[in-house]
Every structure is written in C-alpha cells, then in structure tokens.
C-alpha cells in the first residue's frame, strides 16, 4: 500500500494510472447518482413542513459538504507540497480549487432557490450564508493568485499559504448555525444522537453525497492530468508519451 502511494506520487505513473481509473470512477459516480436521484426525487415522500420543495436538499447539502471537504483537501495537500515539496501534492491542491469553487457556488445558488419559497427571500446576510460566500471568495482568490504567478512552483507555495490561512473559515461555516441565531436550519444529518431525518430521505441523500465525492475524484484526476502535462512538458516521460502520436 505504501509502495503504491509512493508510486502514485510519480507524475508518469499518476498520468497512466489516472487514465485507466477515470472510466471506472465515472461508472461508480453514475451508479450512486442514479440511485440518489431516483430515491430522492421519486421514492422519498414529501416533507411534512416544506412539501416537495425540500427535494433541493439532495443537491444543496451534498454540494455544501463538498465545498468544505474539498477546501480541507486543498489546504492539506497544499501544506504537504509546502513542507515536502511533493509535486503531485501541489497539483492536487490547485486542481481541487475550481471544483471546490463550483460546489460552493452550487451550495449558494441552490440554497438561494430553496430559501425563496421557504424563507421568503433569496438572500440574507446571516452567518451561514455569509461565511459560505467568503469560502467562494477564498477559492476564487486561490485560483487568481495561482494564475498571477508565472513560476508554478512558487505559485503553488503562495496558494498553499493562502489556503491554510483560509482554513479558519471552515469551523466558522460549520458551527455558524449553532453559534449565532441564524435563519438557516440546524444540522439534520451530522448530529451525534439520532439524525432527525427518515431513512427513506437519508439514504438517497447519502448516495448523492457519495456520488458527489466520486465526481470530485473524476474532476480532480482530469484536471491534475492537464496540470502535470503542462508542468512536465519538457521532461522525458511527456516526450515519450507524445512520441507515439
């Protein structure tokens, strides 16, 4: 296992391995997505308070989870790149940013669409929404900073530091619904006692969460391959790879 991880950190091995893994990952994503959508949109009953409108939960909540999860992956792999100078860690960090930004955007937009009929407003400057908006700006800042610096190894270090400073926002987002009196409802699933959601609603939600995680895997590999190819364009393995074409 350690040997495999070690091998995976080598760009040519990663490039070849990810090329083979992508179709399988995509298939896995499709399976969880189909069950999640069918279970969530068709099988699950309507909510006794919110009616059918609650079905936005099946994208809103997994997207919001991913926005936090991807940020942590980005910050941690950025730190690994910063400390051990592992190229692949730098590539994983920067390749995560656009996908994280996309999920943050989706969490905000689907939340807004859900908020209109339920709260009567598209937007409210309250703690959960504002801190999630700050997360979007952090992602965009990371992307902009990376593009502004020509030398990509220096850019990666700058980006890692920005991402690590921004980690302070993550617990703020998570606990915002408990620390402040917010319009946003409290956690439904991640409570330590029993989750306050019926199994027929919970299972599709978890399935969608897994689907989104696998989707992140797909997006990450696709982007990391581009980044590696671009960075290593003058090395032997890329020349060999292109030689066959």
């Amino acid at each position, binding site marked *: 296992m350690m040997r495999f991880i070690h091998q995976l950190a080598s760009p040519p091995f990663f490039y070849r391995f990810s090329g083979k893994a992508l179709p399988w990952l995509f298939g896995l994503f499709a399976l969880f997505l189909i069950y999640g959508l069918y279970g969530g949109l*068709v099988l699950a009953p309507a909510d006794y308070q919110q009616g059918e409108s609650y079905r936005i939960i099946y994208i809103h909540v997994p*997207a919001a989870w991913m926005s936090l999860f991807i940020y942590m992956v980005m910050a941690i792999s950025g730190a690994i790149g910063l400390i051990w100078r592992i190229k692949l860690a730098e590539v994983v960090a920067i390749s995560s940013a*656009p996908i994280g930004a*996309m999920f943050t955007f*989706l969490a905000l937009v*689907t939340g807004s*669409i859900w908020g209109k*009929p339920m709260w009567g407003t598209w937007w409210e400057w309250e703690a959960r929404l504002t801190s999630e908006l700050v997360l979007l700006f952090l992602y965009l800042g990371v992307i902009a900073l990376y593009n502004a610096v020509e030398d990509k190894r220096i850019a990666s270090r700058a980006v890692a530091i920005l991402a690590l400073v921004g980690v302070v926002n993550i617990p703020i987002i998570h606990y915002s619904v408990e620390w402040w009196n917010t319009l946003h409802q409290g956690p439904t699933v991640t409570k330590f006692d029993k989750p306050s959601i019926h199994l027929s609603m919970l299972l599709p939600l978890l399935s969608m969460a897994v689907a989104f995680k696998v989707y992140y895997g797909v*997006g990450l590999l696709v982007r990391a391959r581009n980044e590696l*190819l671009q960075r290593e364009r003058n090395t032997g393995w890329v020349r060999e790879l292109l030689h066959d074409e």
Partner: protein
Amino acid sequence: MNSLAEFLHMGGYGSYVWSAYGIALVAMVLAIIVPLRQHTSLRQRLTRQLKRKKES
C-alpha cells in the same frame, strides 16, 4: 407519484426544484467537459512543438 405532470409540478415548487437541478447539471457537466477539451488541445499543442523541435 401518479403522473409525469404531477411529478414535474412538484407540489407547486416545480420551478424552484427544477431550476436548482438544472443549474447543478449544467455546472457539473461543464466542470468536466472544459478540462477534458483542454487536455486534447494541450496534447495536440505539445505534440506539434515536439515535432517542430525535431525538425529544426
């Protein structure tokens, strides 16, 4: 779920539910398609550069 129309109606919340799903679909498809296309063009560009180098 009695009919397709009823399903699409979503108890009166159809426009909210489906616009949320529609935006998610478009964003998630684009976020994969765009880098895949970049991959193709990047490989073509690098191959051309390599050939030029060999010829010179």
